[in-house]
């Protein structure tokens, strides 16, 4: 009897918890902000190994492998360190980004054959990331302030938000919708429409796993519906709060990659 009572209470608590998450009257802006936090700010820092497979419409595949380090600083600013392991012609190259909220990012490329830290001019964040169907913004996050958000649909399990760019000339889409998980706040499907209103691009989270308490996308896919090209990202060795120091994200550790990425 006691056990039954306990179970009933627990079920109620779980139910209430789930209910309260749904019942919160979140505005579209709040949902997007939470999604931004869940996607790009889990933990104080984090690391992952990424295997990227780009498959063209004709079935030709290209692969990239890299390790990623991320550190969150004050005011939403972040630092990213990407260390390439494959293909062979980019082996040991590193890409360093200091993401500055409200300003251009600072970006550098480490060219190992020249021992050169090359600064890269601020670029269009809608440019393809290493030739894949992901764009830079998919990797480092699109500013929630860049779009006007509208809640289109809300169910027990997800929010559907429509996003319209404030500066349409700066992007290739006229709008995009994103379906955000109501519990984890991770974006599950984002669909991009061109200026004629045609759906042309889709980014999906195919597999989500909880790591150290943080819901984490383990497999993601970006599809270019016009060219037929598809890129699949598989994340492994994901860890959070590993105690990364800011000095890792400097020239010293471009010259001498930290063990977190060379393992």
């Amino acid at each position, binding site marked *: 009897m006691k056990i039954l009572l306990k179970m009933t209470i627990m079920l109620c608590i779980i139910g209430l918890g789930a209910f309260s998450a749904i019942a919160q009257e979140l505005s579209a802006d709040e949902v997007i902000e939470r999604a931004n936090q869940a996607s790009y700010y889990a933990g104080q820092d984090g690391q992952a190994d990424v295997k990227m497979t*780009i498959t063209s419409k004709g079935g*030709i595949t*290209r*692969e990239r492998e890299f390790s990623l380090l991320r550190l969150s600083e004050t005011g939403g600013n972040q630092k990213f360190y990407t260390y390439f392991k*494959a*293909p*062979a*012609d980019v*082996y*040991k190259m590193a890409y360093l980004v*200091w993401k*500055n909220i409200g*300003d*251009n990012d*600072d970006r550098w490329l480490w*060219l190992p*054959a*020249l*021992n*050169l830290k090359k*600064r*890269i*001019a*601020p*670029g*269009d964040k*809608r*440019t*393809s990331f*290493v*030739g*894949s169907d992901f764009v830079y913004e998919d990797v480092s996050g699109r500013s929630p302030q860049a779009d006007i958000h509208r809640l289109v649909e809300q169910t027990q399990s997800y929010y559907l938000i429509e996003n319209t760019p404030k500066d349409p000339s700066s992007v290739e889409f006229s709008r995009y919708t994103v379906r955000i998980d109501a519990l984890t706040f991770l974006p599950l499907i984002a669909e991009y429409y061109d200026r004629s209103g045609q759906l042309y691009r889709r980014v999906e989270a195919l597999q989500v796993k909880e790591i150290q308490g943080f819901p984490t996308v383990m497999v993601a896919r970006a599809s270019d519906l016009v060219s037929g*090209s598809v890129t699949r990202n598989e994340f492994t060795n994901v860890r959070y709060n590993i105690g990364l120091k800011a*000095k890792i994200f*400097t*020239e*010293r550790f471009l*010259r*001498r*990659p930290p*063990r977190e990425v*060379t393992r």
Partner: protein
Amino acid sequence: MVRYHITIIVAALLLLGLAGSASAWQWHGFVDGRSGMRLHEDNGAGEQRRSILNELRAQVDLSHNADWGVWQIRSDVILDEAAGQRNADLESGHGVIDLREANVLFLPHDLVDVKLGRQILTWGTGDLLFINDMFPKDWQSFFIGRDEEYLKAPSDAVFISLFPDFASIDVVYNPRFDADRYISGERISYWNPLLNRHAGRDDELRVDRRSRWFRDDEISLRIYRDVAGYELAFYGYDGFWKSPVGYDPVSARQTFPALRVLGASIRGNAGSGLFNLEAGYYDSRCDRDGDDPLIPNSEYRLLVGYEQELMRNLSAALQYYLEYMDDYSYYQRTLPVGSVEKDRARHVLTLRLSRQAFNQNLLLSLFTYWSPSDHDGYLRPSLKYKASDALSIYVGANLFFGQRSDTFFGQFEDNNNLYVGIRYSL
């Protein structure tokens, strides 16, 4: 074989490391075939060969990461039908082996990194223009169509980096002078002011090579830090002019006169682009008054650059570069009768256009040098296509033009060339 001492010591250390933990070594490499042809005969300087580059190159890159440091060895094995000199020489990169790197990086202290051995060194802010980067360049490779990375020649050096809170400090000591792999006429004919004509492969340069250990040494210094997103750096160099620009009438040899350089640079985002500013003073220590016609005068050098993405996958970079001679009146006064008088200022503008297409698998680039004061220039169009993750194809050209045959780019006008290459990386 004294000249190979450092290399041999490092190679021995590498082998020890290898024996210690063979499993943790990683290796990569590539095979690169390249062929370049002159666009027209060069009969001005003896008989220069029509083929300027015909090489098969294999690179092996071995590295080992441990908690205490990194081993690195990277060497090319080359078969080059168009090479003028076949005797092996690791300094000039002649022969079958071009040892690019053989070094160990270790961490004697939390705030100190040391890299010892043969290494490629680069710093400064210019794009294919150098003021404070006094590390050796390989101009021959640059002009005949090898990959751009071969513009940098290796140094045998100790590289010490210190990381106190207020700045980062790099000190490089080369116990023996590492000259540029300068244009010697071997493949590229050039204007030789001593001969007062173009010189080619049959005109052997007599050069005092400055090869004494610890006496013909070089030291380079850089202090840099980030100030509100701008990279600020100060530089110092004590060594020699990197090409044999001096002349000793007693030994009748060309020389590398003593040189000190002091400079500074700043780089950062500006508007929607990236700007850089770099300056330096070349203190020609053996001709401080500027009255020795056989040694270059001191000069000021300045570089201003701006780079911006014009549209997605298309960017443009513009640079202005100035060389301004010190003590010009002494230079004019002591110039031997009949010599060509140089301008006091040499102005150069560069423009780089880069375009990426087909999912960034096609890279098109055009780099242009143009000097309004020398009335000459140099075009470097290039195409790289990544046919697969492993296979890349290259096509490019080196095109020089000028009104006179003695200016920096104009002297190479007979060396215009077109090249094709293919590289398999693994």
